């Protein structure tokens, strides 16, 4: 019995490795190709016989990108928008999620479902009314306005994800803190939120990545370079009358760099957070 267990375990381990390696290659392969492409001159990209490795290694694509696209401004705009989005979600979403997790009150379930339903109306048609709302609030073409618009579909995600992490923190801790001299709000900030911090980080990363990558709203709700974000700037390079494959690849690589750096930084916390939360429904 013991031997067959070990035997079948070995087979499963080998299978797992096979699956993981194939998937990892599939996931990373296109990125490597993009990286290679970004170092190629145009003649190595648009060619009749495939050139795998650049015949002439060049940084020209990156330099052109830097000069032409206004990359620094766009990235700063993206950072501001992403930060604002996360900040709004953190402030309004954390306490809402806490309320859903901690209290059983009339209307709780319908309200939670309501938060989900607001994600369902197609973005295509929300854009023009949102445009009007933003303009009337004086938020059109501002990073704050864009962040507020992102909140409309990222806040529900934030609340739902975070609730799982709050659920995982025992309710007795707040009781203890309240008896020890905290108010409810004190117990929330001193005790529960610190415990759920890994989950909070994980959730924020999700929201940050979504905000960083968003395209449609960013395109429609900004017009000047003063608040335009990086994905819009990137798409702009795909003009109708040019062939910027090399620059596009360079742009793609640059656009995921911050995301990968962020992910690498918080990866441990994030995985720990996700696993600790175990996201109970």
């Amino acid at each position, binding site marked *: 019995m013991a031997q067959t267990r070990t035997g079948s375990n070995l087979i499963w381990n080998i299978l797992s490795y096979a699956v993981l390696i194939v998937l990892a290659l599939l996931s990373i392969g296109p990125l490597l190709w993009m990286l290679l492409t970004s170092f190629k001159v145009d003649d190595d990209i648009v060619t009749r016989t495939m050139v795998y490795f650049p015949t002439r290694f060049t940084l020209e694509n990156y330099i052109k990108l830097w000069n032409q696209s206004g990359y620094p401004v766009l990235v700063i705009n993206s950072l501001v928008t992403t930060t604002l989005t996360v900040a709004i979600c953190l402030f309004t979403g954390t306490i809402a999620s806490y309320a859903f997790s901690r209290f059983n009150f009339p209307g709780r379930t319908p309200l939670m479902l309501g938060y989900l339903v607001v994600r369902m109306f197609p973005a295509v048609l929300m854009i023009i009314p949102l445009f009007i709302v933003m303009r009337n609030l004086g938020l059109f073409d501002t990073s704050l306005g864009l962040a507020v618009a992102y909140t409309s579909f990222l806040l529900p995600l934030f609340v739902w994800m975070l609730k799982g992490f709050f659920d995982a923190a025992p309710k*007795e*801790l707040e*009781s*203890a803190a*309240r*008896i*020890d*001299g905290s108010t409810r709000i004190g117990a929330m900030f001193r*005790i529960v939120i610190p415990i759920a911090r890994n989950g909070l980080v994980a959730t924020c990363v999700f929201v940050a990545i979504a905000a960083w990558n968003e395209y449609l709203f960013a395109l429609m709700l900004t017009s000047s370079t003063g608040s335009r974000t990086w994905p819009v700037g990137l798409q702009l390079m795909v003009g109708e009358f040019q062939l910027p494959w090399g620059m596009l690849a360079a742009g793609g690589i640059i656009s995921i760099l911050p995301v990968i750096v962020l992910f690498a930084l918080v990866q441990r916390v994030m995985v720990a957070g996700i696993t600790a939360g175990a996201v109970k429904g």
Partner: protein
Amino acid sequence: MATLSIKGVRKSFGAVEVLKTIDIELEDGGFLVLLGPSGCGKSTLLSIIAGLEPSSGGDVIIGERNVNDVHPKDRNIAMVFQSYALYPTMPVRRNIGFGLEMRKVPAAERDAAVQRAAELLQIEHLLDRKPGQLSGGQRQRVAMGRAIVRDPDLFLFDEPLSNLDAKLRVEMRTEIKRLHDRLGTSIVYVTHDQIEAMTLGTKVAVMKGGVIQQIADPQTIYEKPANMFVAGFIGSPTMNFLSGTLERSGGTIVLRHGEALLALPGLEQDVGAHIGKSVVAGIRPETFHPGEGQGTLTGTVDVVEPTGPDTMVILSIGGQLLTARLGSRDRPKLGDTMTLAVDTAAINLFDPDTGDRI
């Protein structure tokens, strides 16, 4: 230190009434145990005393102060939870001192108090660890340290020992008793473990279905249970219930159970009104003795369970099974007919319709 009075406290969740008019008085320095099966409302009552949940009616008075509208933080109570509820992000020192920190006690004073509490509980060496690095017993001590450091009017314990293994549980039980003796603070202690109730409490309230069945000192609870529920809940093995009819035979009162007759001399209860009616006799297993006496019961040996110091013998008498706790040397064979004497003075009689003690 303070007295605690609970006057007419009720609690309902929607249509469900979980506490029905609870009245309790606890003297200063007393140790009240709320005992009952799960779902009896004992933890809810504790939460109401703590102020963690609002009551639906009635008053909670700690000392001279009606605390109905006082927040938990201002009631000057301390509580130990079943899961210990240690703050996982703080080291032990800060965990213990947290209540003082919240009350803005100066740091030096706070440290001294934490040190004293730690010494008392022998956990000085753990002060800089995080709760995650502690064993169950150590966590329990930290939780108690957090409670005593505050020098509150009232301690609340919510099943504090139920997560410990058997040996530690006994050890900590003794520890709690010692603490109570030394500090003299009033305690309300929730448990479903009758041994904890009996060993710790100066006063035990047995609860069921949101109602206090009996509130008395442990001895009274054990010897004179107010009803069959209390009688059956307290004691291990549980009390035997032998149903039968009360008859007067000569000068003595006897209980007839089918063919079997049990004479009941020296009965404390006044049973005059129940002659000729059916009653239930509550007989504790340890009141049986081998051999002859004033009242005896004879039956067939059904099961024999040696436990070490004792031997549990289950007798079948007229189809009803009774457990007797006999000495370790008394080992009858299965199927033997056995006659046991009963200490009839210790027998309680209950009304089978209401379950109350006659």
